[in-house]
């Protein structure tokens, strides 16, 4: 009943060809519905995902992949500990908001401002995740709905803050003021890709080292495999859960901070919600069945799907929402083939109320 408890049952490539045919057929029908010229659409897709002048679009894909992989990491840490935290969006938004506010309003040397902004963003994300954890462990609100419901207050709070009290009124849009130029994350030399990706790589290294070489990480994974066993072994299950959630939320907050300091240089209303980063991160993790080394690949794949779809919209007028739709189709077909992917109850209570238990 745990997260990673069986070997993949699918052998050979034959079933996957069927999956591929289905996915392509659905794509075909959707494109037909939009009346798109196929050649132009394909060209637009490729240039949108990988092309552009001096590979500008490829850089966009990479920086989008950075955010998606970051969110995937955050989600993976908690999923592997059996904690179904789907409140990544709220943690991401608050992290981004707090980072932007620190960046705009904290005086001081730029390096310090960036460091403080990122740390504050991580703290905000962590706090939001821990809140959901506390609700589950001490109040009995299932993490699944608790963490999800917390997304909405975070979203509207951020929208209010940059829409009213701390709005850059002169810009005419609901957004915060710009972070001073000196505090922007620099580009890699000769490219238009900011160094935010390094932070995510660092977080990934941390997550893998933590998960596989520390006692703490081992215990967290053990709790994920079997909470009753961990509890019977005398592990502090609650504390482990809260610590794991704090780390997960901190990474989500970090992603928000990267988006602020590296990409948008301010908090714009909806900038972290509209592109569905958090949900794409979850999907990126599910696609590869939570195998850590494959997550960057699937994150890049979905990022390319999204920027490619944007390119297709520019070139052939196919609505870019095709990307989200295809993401869902892919995950339906692939995840339903990976039978090992099951979510059991997490630490404490509040697993799957629908399965088995007394229904009254």
């Amino acid at each position, binding site marked *: 009943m745990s997260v990673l408890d069986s070997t993949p049952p699918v052998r050979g490539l034959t079933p996957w060809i069927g999956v591929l045919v289905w996915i392509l057929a659905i794509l075909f029908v*959707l494109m037909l*519905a*939009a*009346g798109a010229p196929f050649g132009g659409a394909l060209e637009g897709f490729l240039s949108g995902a990988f092309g552009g002048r001096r590979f500008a679009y490829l850089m966009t894909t990479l920086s989008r992949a950075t955010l998606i992989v970051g969110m995937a990491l955050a989600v993976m840490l908690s999923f592997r500990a059996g904690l*179904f935290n*789907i409140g990544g969006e709220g943690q991401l938004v608050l992290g981004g908001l707090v980072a932007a506010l620190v960046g705009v309003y904290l005086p001081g040397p730029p390096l310090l401002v960036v460091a403080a902004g990122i740390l504050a963003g991580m703290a905000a994300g962590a706090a939001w995740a821990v809140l959901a954890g506390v*609700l589950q462990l001490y*109040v*009995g*609100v*299932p993490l*699944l*709905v*608790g963490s*999800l*419901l*917390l997304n*909405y*207050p975070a979203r*509207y*709070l951020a*929208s*209010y803050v940059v*829409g*009213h009290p701390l709005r850059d009124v002169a810009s005419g849009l609901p957004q915060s003021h710009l972070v001073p130029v000196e505090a922007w994350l620099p580009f890699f030399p000769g490219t238009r890709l900011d160094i935010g990706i390094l932070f995510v790589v660092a977080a990934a290294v941390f997550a893998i080292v933590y998960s596989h070489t520390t006692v703490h990480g081992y215990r967290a994974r053990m709790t994920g495999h079997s909470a009753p066993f961990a509890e019977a072994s005398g592990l502090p299950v609650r504390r482990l859960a809260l610590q794991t959630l704090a780390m997960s939320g901190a990474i989500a907050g970090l992603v928000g901070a990267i988006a602020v300091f590296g990409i948008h240089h301010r908090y714009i209303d909806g900038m972290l919600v509209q592109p*569905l980063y958090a*949900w794409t991160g*979850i*999907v990126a993790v*599910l696609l590869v069945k939570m195998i850590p080394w494959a997550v960057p690949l699937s994150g890049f794949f979905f990022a390319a799907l999204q920027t490619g779809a944007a390119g297709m919209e520019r070139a052939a007028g196919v*609505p870019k*929402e*095709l*990307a*989200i*739709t*295809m*993401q*869902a*189709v892919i*995950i*339906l*077909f692939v*995840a*339903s*083939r990976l*039978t090992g*992917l*099951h*979510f059991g109850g997490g630490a404490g209570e509040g697993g*799957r*109320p*629908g*399965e*088995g238990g*007394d*229904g*009254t």
Partner: protein
Amino acid sequence: MGLEALFDPAFAASLPRFITPILLAALGGALCERAGVFNIALEGFVLVGAFSAVLGAYFFGSAAMGALTAVFGGVLMGLIFAEFHLRRPGDPIVVSIALNLLAAGLTTYLLRAIFDVAGAFRDPAIVGFEPIHIPLVAAIPLVGPVLSGQSALFYVALGAAVFMHVFFARHRLGLRLRAAGENPAALVAGGVSPERVRLWALVLCGALCGLAGAQLSIANVNLFVENMSAGRGWIAVVAVLLTRGRPLPLLAIVCLFGFVDSLSFRVQGLGWPQQFTDMMPYVATLAVLVVLSWWRLRRSA
């Protein structure tokens, strides 16, 4: 600002607008819950329902056809859920997340592909539900404006709640449905396939969620907006979890949610920023969830 100002007939009349979609979706969720399907894709079901309702109301020019296409859209979602969760061994949470994404992506995609608009689609050709005025009931003070002058779907929702209560308690098929959730082995021993029962639960859930969407798009207003379900499906999920799918408590708790929802709509007149009134349904849902969970925890401890 006294209470009277909040509880005037206009307020009472607005209650069902908030209650109906959540109640219909939650009843659908209750069917799944009782049949042992962990369906947290209600949000996506409702969104597809809202979109299909506008399709039907626009192309066939009648609210009834809108409701019918909404049911059709919802049932389609239920069948997709069944295909990937029942026929294939997909985890219900994964399938739900995928279906919620699918609904968000597909409705926006089709909105742009079919009507060539982004954001919102409004058109005089969308024929919505007319309020039904019940002569004698309308005259009752306080309750009158709640019970009279509502869309047909409100009465459908109330009827469905009562019907479902009787169905679960008394009817053979209702007992089978509960058995599929509580003791599938017994059902198998009785010669009934739990999978088949769950398939029907998903289909009916889709139909009810479709109607919930229709209430949103062609009864409350006459237009479709991207992501117009706006978390109501999740609130329905919370209601189902809190009541474990029992119809009458479900009705009560949804009324409570609807009350707070319409209250928040009301205080918009007090000059609060819109973000706070937008936030209120979720905060209220969370608050109810916290209080009830805490109370349950205390009682069981």
